[in-house]
């Protein structure tokens, strides 16, 4: 795998940059881990068999991306922690995912809106990340962007179907949008870590992404005959370890085996 970085390529970074990159890659890994976890909760319970398959598929893609990212983070850190140590053996306040991806599945409309807000960011972000001078991030982005394009197609199509479907589906998706919108802004609100790496030109600048993210959202909402919420105060904090109450319960499940049987091979 591309992401198992060799030490020589990493030695070009100063310890400070390495630490910044470690935090950054961990944030990306936590994000896809948590969203993949949420989607995998649908497995066996989807509204249509074909959509059960689609959600499992997206969850699997995200989990694949997660693994590449944790492996790279582990290499950056250089303390012999494994992908599993990073995924399973940290405390809640050390997770760096944005609040959006830890929100509960709710009904299918909530899942679709959460997915669309994330996919629209993720796809455009990965497109830019492919050009990163960091070869490992660029390689992970190159692989994941193809998957993210499919995810975005799936969630955008469902936003349109639910928005322009029946009266009930419209009410449900409007409710989901009004609930989840407050978490969208955090995706592109840079933390000090992100700002520092953006300044170094190692990772995409969100300001440059904003126009394409906004334009595609406007296009999909127009097709879905949905209104874009205005002036919603954003909820922030996940990317800096200040989470909603939901994360603790996710970790209780996610970490159960690793915490109960420490240090074993599975």
């Amino acid at each position, binding site marked *: 795998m591309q992401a198992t970085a060799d030490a020589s390529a990493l030695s070009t970074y100063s310890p400070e940059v390495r630490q910044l990159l470690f935090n950054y890659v961990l944030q990306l890994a936590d994000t896809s881990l948590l969203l993949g*976890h949420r989607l*995998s*909760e649908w*497995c*066996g*319970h*989807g*509204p*249509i*068999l*074909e*959509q*059960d*398959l689609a959600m*499992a*598929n997206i*969850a*699997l893609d995200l*989990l*694949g991306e*997660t*693994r590449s990212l*944790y492996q790279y983070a582990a290499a950056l850190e250089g303390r012999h922690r494994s*992908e*599993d140590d990073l*995924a*399973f053996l940290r405390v809640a306040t050390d997770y760096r995912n944005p609040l959006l991806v830890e929100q509960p599945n709710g*009904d*299918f409309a909530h899942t679709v809106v959460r997915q669309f807000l994330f996919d629209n960011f993720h796809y455009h972000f990965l497109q830019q990340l492919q050009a990163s001078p960091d070869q490992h991030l660029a390689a992970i982005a190159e692989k994941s962007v193809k998957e993210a394009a499919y995810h975005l197609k799936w969630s955008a199509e469902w936003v*349109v*179907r*639910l928005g*322009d*479907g*029946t009266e*009930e*589906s419209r009410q*449900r998706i409007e409710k989901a949008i009004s609930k989840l919108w407050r978490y969208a802004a955090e995706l592109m609100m840079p933390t000090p870590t992100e700002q520092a790496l953006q300044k170094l030109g190692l990772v995409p600048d969100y300001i440059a992404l904003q126009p394409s993210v906004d334009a595609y959202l406007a296009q999909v909402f127009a097709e879905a005959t949905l209104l874009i919420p205005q002036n919603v105060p954003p909820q922030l904090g996940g990317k800096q370890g200040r989470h909603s109450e939901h994360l603790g319960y*996710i970790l209780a*499940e*996610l970490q*159960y*085996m*690793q915490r109960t*049987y420490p240090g*074993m*091979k*599975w």
Partner: protein
Amino acid sequence: METAELTQEELFQQRIDADQRIEPKDWMPEAYRKTLIRQISQHAHSEIVGMLPEGNWITRAPSLKRKSILLAKVQDEAGHGLYLYSAAETLGASRDQMLADLHAGKAKYSSIFNYPTLSWADIGCVGWLVDGAAILNQVPLCRTSYGPYARAMVRVCKEESFHQRQGFEIMQTLCEGAPEQKAMAQEALNRWWWPTLMMFGPKDDESPNTARSMQWRIKRFTNDELRQKFVDMMVPQAEFLGLTVPDAKAKWNETKKGYDFGDVNWEEFWQVVNGNGLCNHDRLQARVDAWEEGAWVREAALAHAKKRAARV
């Protein structure tokens, strides 16, 4: 008229006897069609209900690698359900009707999924034993007389044999691990062994559909033949893992070149088949809930497709 019908039936049996495949548009006896719809839809339902006990461990899988493999495996089961429903549709059954029969409790699914998955080792046992038993049941179906079913089964069997290997590998990792892990493996085997022997169905002399299904080559081995094959295959595998099957009578019999084994608890078998297993209620309710809670989604998709078509 009646004579003509008889001749058709004789011709049909001749084709079966010559090992020719029956295809959707071919003439077939109504009872053959019904038997197949019952069997294929039951099989499809088993795939879908079978997602639940394994899905129960996706969010708790012990490593990222195991989580990916398990999620992919459960997703494969959904895919199997999809091709099997499609195969049944070629016989004139609708997916909605088949699901309605499942939800109403009229259609059966494999009773094995009415047992709970209580530890991570259960995920190993489901792959190793349950998928192992399913493969023995299913490999002969790749040569079953109805073409679409046989072709669907070729693909299903390929994936199932991968699933079985991953289950065995989970067990092997546990058995080579810490004492707690080995104990977990043995405890799971103790619970899954007898229910998997029940997966082959009642004893031959109590299996009402066997004779005709054999005559039509829908089925190619009897329940007892398959059960014997399973025991012969699995007892040595358990020994290889350093585990003991929970049957004191399981011993190699040199004369019959196979294992002797104890009696299945048929009382338990019929209890679970008739809805009284630990998870029967919850499994079916989970399927009904998913269907009912998804109704508005399906309606929205349909309404949107109609609006779109009207605009063109």
